[in-house]
């Protein structure tokens, strides 16, 4: 007597294109359900959209700050070297530095040139004429190559400090460091908020799908009775979740776009005060597609959560 058969004596009723036909019917029904419950659907889209918009904005901010950091101040950090008064080896030191691979250029300002610049900029040249000697030192401005890292910068600064006739070395990278720090902070916040709000989006969708399941319990019971598989019972709700999530992703894209429109002018004004320009980037078709895809995936995750809870204990009779 067979106990656990692999094949039963009943035929499997399969039809050509049946699987696709089933998906098409479910997708159509899911769209119909969502359009019949407009208020709920709009609310879910808005909630999921807000949940996705904040981390997406932070990611976009991080992308633009990285670009800004790369272009800032001629593109790269620099080192100013101030020589001791009367030091005669400034030109020689400049030549040595120019030979280093990580150095792109060295601009030498002699004592006389420094005095001339000071006089020109301040108009206080007469105040210095009474002094016995020029009090302004010669200086070098060292600009680094694009591929020079922070370690190379520090190494060059250290070697210059140790050179004869050098009074002071100033590494001018404060703004760049700030921009990079803000960029890293934005990235970290993006991930943290992304995780938190992602969980929020999953829970919002799960709650909504749970209501949808409850409103269709009778239909699910009958479907189970007439031979629907677990996958068939789950499928409509996975579509709900995906549609709610995808709609939320679109709303998030609209919110981010709105934010960019509002922030663009004041941001460009701010950058203009530092002689910088920036074309805001990152908000493109790929970004919107990623938001919609992510929203869809989160929505489906919420639906899976709800379906597991509600369908596991479906009591038919």
């Amino acid at each position, binding site marked *: *007597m*067979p*106990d*656990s*058969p*692999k094949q*039963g*004596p*009943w*035929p*499997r*009723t*399969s*039809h050509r294109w*049946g*699987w696709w*036909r*089933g998906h098409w*019917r479910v997708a159509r029904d899911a769209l119909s359900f969502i359009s019949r419950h407009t208020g709920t659907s709009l609310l879910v889209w808005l909630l999921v959209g807000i949940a996705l918009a904040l981390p997406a904005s932070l990611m976009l901010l991080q992308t633009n700050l990285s670009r800004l950091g790369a272009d800032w101040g001629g593109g790269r950090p620099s080192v100013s070297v101030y020589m001791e008064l009367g030091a005669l080896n400034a030109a020689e030191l400049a030549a040595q530095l120019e030979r280093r691979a990580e150095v792109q250029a060295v601009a030498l300002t002699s004592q006389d040139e420094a005095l001339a610049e000071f006089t020109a900029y301040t108009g206080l040249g007469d105040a210095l004429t009474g002094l016995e000697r020029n009090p302004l030192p010669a200086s070098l401005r060292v600009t680094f190559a694009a591929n020079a890292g922070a370690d190379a910068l520090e190494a060059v600064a250290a070697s210059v400090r140790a050179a004869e006739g050098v009074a002071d070395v100033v590494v001018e990278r404060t703004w760049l460091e700030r921009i990079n720090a803000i960029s890293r902070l934005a990235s970290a916040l993006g991930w943290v908020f992304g995780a938190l709000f992602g969980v929020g989006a999953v829970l919002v969708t799960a709650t909504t799908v749970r209501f949808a399941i409850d409103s269709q319990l*009778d*239909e699910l*019971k*009958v*479907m*189970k*009775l*007439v*031979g*629907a*598989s*677990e996958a*068939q019972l789950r499928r409509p709700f996975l579509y709900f979740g995906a549609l709610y999530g995808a709609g939320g992703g679109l709303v998030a894209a609209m919110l981010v776009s709105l934010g960019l429109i509002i922030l663009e002018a004041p941001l460009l004004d701010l950058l203009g005060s530092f002689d910088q320009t920036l074309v805001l980037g990152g908000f493109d078709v790929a970004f919107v597609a990623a938001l919609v895809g992510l929203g869809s995936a989160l929505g489906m995750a919420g639906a899976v959560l709800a379906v597991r809870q509600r369908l596991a204990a479906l009591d*038919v*009779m």
Partner: protein
Amino acid sequence: MGRIEFLNVYKRYPSGFEALRDLSVVFEEGSMTFLTGHSGAGKTTCLKLLLCLDNPTHGQILVNGVNVSRLSARRLPHYRQNLGAVFQDHKLLAARSVFDNVALPLRVSHMREREVRRRVSAALNRVGLLERESLPPMQLSTGEQQRVGIARAVVSRPKILLADEPTGNLDPELSQDIMALFQGFNEVGATVIVASHDRALIESLDNPVVELSHGMRVR
């Protein structure tokens, strides 16, 4: 497919209630059998076990030699698609039309819409409700709703038809009409099991009877 065997079947619920006790019975292929007994005798439990909505605590339920309580989750839907079931409360979907209610088993099995229409029309014609296919079931009388339930049960041409108190809310004349439908399906080869406590109806027909009392077979 059509021979059904209950072999030493026990069903005890978590509350401790024993719905079936050492039930052994055979329903031959192509037969129409009444399953009768008082309320709580175990009739509905038998049908639930046959539909694999629950598992026996002990014993085997064989359908054409296959122990259906051991079917995998993957095979179970195919098994159910080959059963038809009719219930006292009809289990119709209020928000769907008569047509959509009857079409449900065919759509679950991914049948083409053209074929769905053909088969549903045939089933509704058989139960005399073809002209009411677009109405919601709640606009029909109780007897008509029961006929919609029967049309849904037979639309996929099952080899086994199970009915749980199908005439429970109907007057004697309508009950006879419903039974005539079941007999018609039985005549074309379906194994039919009708759970009913309507003694007058059962005795008016010349079909085998299995009587249960407190979960045990007494006839």
